[in-house]
């Protein structure tokens, strides 16, 4: 199951295919707290990039800035060369960035199929009068969207739960449903915030399969994850944040042996020991 994708070297970013996502000295300040401090990195098209770091490192804040839930205090965020800073979240979603949340945020008392159908909201054309009077166009669109949503549920093995409330799904399936919802609008960049949190090892294996399948379809995936086994296995590149600062980025192997990363996770003593090469674990 190990993904052995050819990875371009880190230096010649200009020569590589244009980055789908570029953060340029992005900062976020909450009052006196500098949650993200001048972080710069890129995600190339078709890559799987993981962002790791201890709790409170500013990972989710970075996600929230990319998806427009928080405005960045400083810096530029470019999606396919277009700045998304200050853009409302739904426009960013329509542009092609969708996400899942660390604590699952499904629409609890809405059926699973409707959850996925909401995902296609921004791609639909039917206006209120068309839906009110059920014009042929609206009917057709509704039917198409419902069929696509059902197909997507089937793909994720959720078709049995199509008419159940999202809240009533087992936990692992809720995580999947959230991914299905995020995919419904046909994004090009998918942000997953700790997708493996709370999953058992079997579910984690399935999750990794889903992620690599999605990449095979041409999707770029940027995820936050604490489970090092998942991170090391699926990531093309890893970005490490600590106290809001970017402390390392590179191939999994490079990051694993990076003393600063080990220090961030395990303290300075461990970093000294790691010179002799023990494994980093989460």
């Amino acid at each position, binding site marked *: 199951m190990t993904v052995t994708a050819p990875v371009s070297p880190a230096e010649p970013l200009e020569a590589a295919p244009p980055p789908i996502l570029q953060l340029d000295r992005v900062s976020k300040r909450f009052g006196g707290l500098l949650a993200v401090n001048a972080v710069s990195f890129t995600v190339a098209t078709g890559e799987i990039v993981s962002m790791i770091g201890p709790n409170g490192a500013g990972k989710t804040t970075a996600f929230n800035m990319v*998806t*427009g*839930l928080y405005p960045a205090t400083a810096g530029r965020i470019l999606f396919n060369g277009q700045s998304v800073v200050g853009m*409302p*979240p*739904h426009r960013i*979603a*329509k542009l092609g960035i*969708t*996400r899942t*949340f660390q604590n699952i*945020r*499904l*629409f*609890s*008392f*809405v059926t699973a*199929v*409707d959850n996925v*159908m*909401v*995902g296609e*909201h*921004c*791609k*639909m054309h*039917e206006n*209120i009068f068309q*839906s*009110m*009077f*059920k014009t042929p166009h*609206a009917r057709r*669109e*509704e*039917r198409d969207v*419902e069929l696509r949503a*059902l197909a997507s*549920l089937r793909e994720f093995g959720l*078709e*049995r*739960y*199509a*008419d*159940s*409330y999202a*809240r*009533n799904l087992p936990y692992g399936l809720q995580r999947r449903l959230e991914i299905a*919802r*995020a995919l419904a*609008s046909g994004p090009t960049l998918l942000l997953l915030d700790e997708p493996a949190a709370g999953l058992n090892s079997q579910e984690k294996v399935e999750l990794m399969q889903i992620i690599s399948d999605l990449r095979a379809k041409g999707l770029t995936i940027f995820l936050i994850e604490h489970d090092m086994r998942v991170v090391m296995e699926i990531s093309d590149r890893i970005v490490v944040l600590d106290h809001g600062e970017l402390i390392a980025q590179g191939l999994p192997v490079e990051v694993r042996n990076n003393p600063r990363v080990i220090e961030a996770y395990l303290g300075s003593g461990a970093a000294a020991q790691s010179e002799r090469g023990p494994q980093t674990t989460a």
Partner: protein
Amino acid sequence: MPEPIVDPLAVTETAGPTTEEPRRDDDLAPPDELPATASEAAREESSVGFTALVIAGLVFIVAGWLLPWFVEQTSNGIGFSAQDAVSSPPTGIGTFVVYLIGVAMVGLVAFALYDLLNSITHRGRPLRWWRRRTALAILGAVGTLVVWLLIGVLREEPLFGNISSFAATDNAVWMTLTGFVVLALTYGLRPWVVTHGEVAFGGVVFMIGALMPFIFNQSTSFIEWGASAAAIYTLLALGLNIVVGFAGLLDLGYAAFFAIGAYTCGSLASPVHGLHFPFWIVIFIGLAVAALFGAVLGAPTLRLRGDYLAIVTLGFGEIIPDAANNNLFNATGGPEGITGIDHPSIFGFNFGIDAKFYFWSLLIIIAIVLVLLRNIQRSRLGRAWAAIREDEVAAAATGVNPVTTKLLAFSIGASISGLAGAFFGAELGSITPDSFQFAVSVTVLSTVVLGGLGNNTGVAAGGILVSFIIFWMLDHLQEWMGTFGLKFGLPALGTIDYSRWVYIVYGAILVGIMLLRPAGLLPSRARKSELQAGGQSEALAVVQGVV
């Protein structure tokens, strides 16, 4: 367990007392074998089934119209309830027909009771369509029984106003027939009703509604209540339900839009400004103006949630009647309001002050509003409302524009309220700022919550119930208690001054209903399972020692 239901059509054919429940009616249990597309198939079927019910309903209504006339000619003007027919010797063909109906009714009641008994003995697996069907059966059966019992009372006691003894039996026949039709239809179309309970229920209710002016033809004040209180409040509650129930935005100033609609239409069709536009155009203007104000007043609240939103809307609810009271722009007539508003007319026929025409118009409008809202609820916008209600952040990140979604909720809710305002003014002929005070907003909100937040059927039922309690029951409390006291030898009951007690009684009834049905009379599926889930997690918290 029976074989898995694969073909959605099979549900229609095989559904009966012993058939298993299609799983989409089951809320919390994990779903099983039904394919996911069944719901879609069911939706497609419903339009065909509905037409069938409408045709059947029409046939019954026509038959109902003909029968009393027919019987009257043949039965010497004697009362002709089914009971009378059974107890008195058949004297003509009409009585014979009534006799047949009586037997059919007895059969239906027995059937209903048998069903009830069955459902009691086969308990342990509560199935929803079972309950719905049983509820309808009880409705029909109880209705019929009540008719039989009331006939005696109606002759002597003016429960619904002044009724002559002959007219009482006339009214009773209408009621009896209606009950019979309801039961007959419910059972006749049972498999269909099972799969489309909501639509069938709505059809039956509207049929009864349309017959109301005939059923109570001797009691104009009851129809006045129906037109000016029940229908208006139902319409208001349906509008507010969009804002509060669908989109989850707590609005405490809803009467403002009611006022805007009433004043707009009043100004355009009264001597105040010398304008006399036709009513059927004016209501659309009122609707549009109210919708506009809905968006305008909604805009400042976009950043607010929950309690804070409620306070701001409360402010709007105070501003509008106050502005009207202060005769702002000299357009509202100050505390006297607008008088002499034109009564609507259609094809040269003026509605005048006859309540039943307003009642029928409002009934049609409510039916249209219900259908349109149902369409919206199952569309892109309806899902967006649900998404915003459940989790605004996730909705935005998923691509739902919270601004337009919320404004549309405010706007559409306000437009329905404007419509209600237009009718309110045209019916009464005058409007004053007093009619749009905070109390109206609160009453409508309590109607929505009591009826079942988010469920139009429930909200409509709540509208009828609350307006019945406030505008009919409390008004007649004195009279009822007097009659009751005389009947049971307690004349002291009639000597109490109930006018001091009415709001205590009203409050007690509201509290009682909410205790008995915490999610409302007919809760929406989401609301019901939310309450259940709340109960579960609370129980869990207790077990874990969190609380």
